[in-house]
């Protein structure tokens, strides 16, 4: 019923709060958590001006992604069963595909990721995409 949580993270503070919320839900429901980190593919992502600095070279992106995943995994209670998924692609669509592919019961994610300059007022584009394209419940954490 609520047994498998998809937890997309990106190293933002907001994502860390989502990790804490997913932990609570996992404990309450006895659910398994799959942590997903998507390394943005700059060739497909449509990078807008001023964001170039956020796209790391491939050699740097993967170790950083693994760091973020390990940090998030450590933040989850030891009793919570976890899995880790590191993928590359367009972030929003990769999350959407993952959500549809692996019989998840719900998603926990932050309202905005690394990309939002206007924090608090904007709903991040990735979160918005996920809300508009997935069929399972999404717990959105500010």
């Amino acid at each position, binding site marked *: 019923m609520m047994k498998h949580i998809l937890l997309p993270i990106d190293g933002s503070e907001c994502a860390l709060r989502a990790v804490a919320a997913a932990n609570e839900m996992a404990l309450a429901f006895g659910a398994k958590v799959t942590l997903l980190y998507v390394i943005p593919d700059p060739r497909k992502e449509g990078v807008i001006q001023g964001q170039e600095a956020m796209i790391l070279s491939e050699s740097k992106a993967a170790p950083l992604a693994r760091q973020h995943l390990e940090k998030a995994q450590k933040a989850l209670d030891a009793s919570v069963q976890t899995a880790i998924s590191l993928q590359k692609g367009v972030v929003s669509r990769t999350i959407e595909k993952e959500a549809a592919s692996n019989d998840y019961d719900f998603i926990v994610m932050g309202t905005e990721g690394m990309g939002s300059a206007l924090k608090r007022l904007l709903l991040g584009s990735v979160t918005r995409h996920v809300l508009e394209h997935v*069929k399972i419940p999404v717990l*959105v954490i500010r």
Partner: protein
Amino acid sequence: MAGGYEKILVPYDGSEASERALAQAKVLQEICAAQITLLEVLPNGLEARDQVNYHMLDRPRTVDPASYRAAEANLNQLKASFPLPDRVQVLLAEGPVASTIIETIDREGYDLVVMGSEGLGHALKRFLLGSVTKYVLEHVDIPVMVLS
């Protein structure tokens, strides 16, 4: 928040997505015995001014007593369908939907909102995030569980 949420707001408007939010809230109440508030905001004509709902422009500025009573009776029925009806509060308000939801959250202090991704006003289902849901997501500090 010992393994769950304690005070949950469920904005309801009779749409399919809000029915799914209701079902989800029941699951959550079963797991964590949460206090639930079922909120229905009846939009009146003033709605059209702060949200562009053109289909509502010609509506009267107040909700007629009959639909008010019907909504109240419906909410009380829904309340009875919860696992712990004694821990469900029914709240009926009138006004602009999105800002009334936010005011209720600010006033009552919830730790979770469970709501549908779009309400009754939507033609382009599935691809649009409803304006009310979007407004809530952008204006609250608490977690929001969105059901599509």
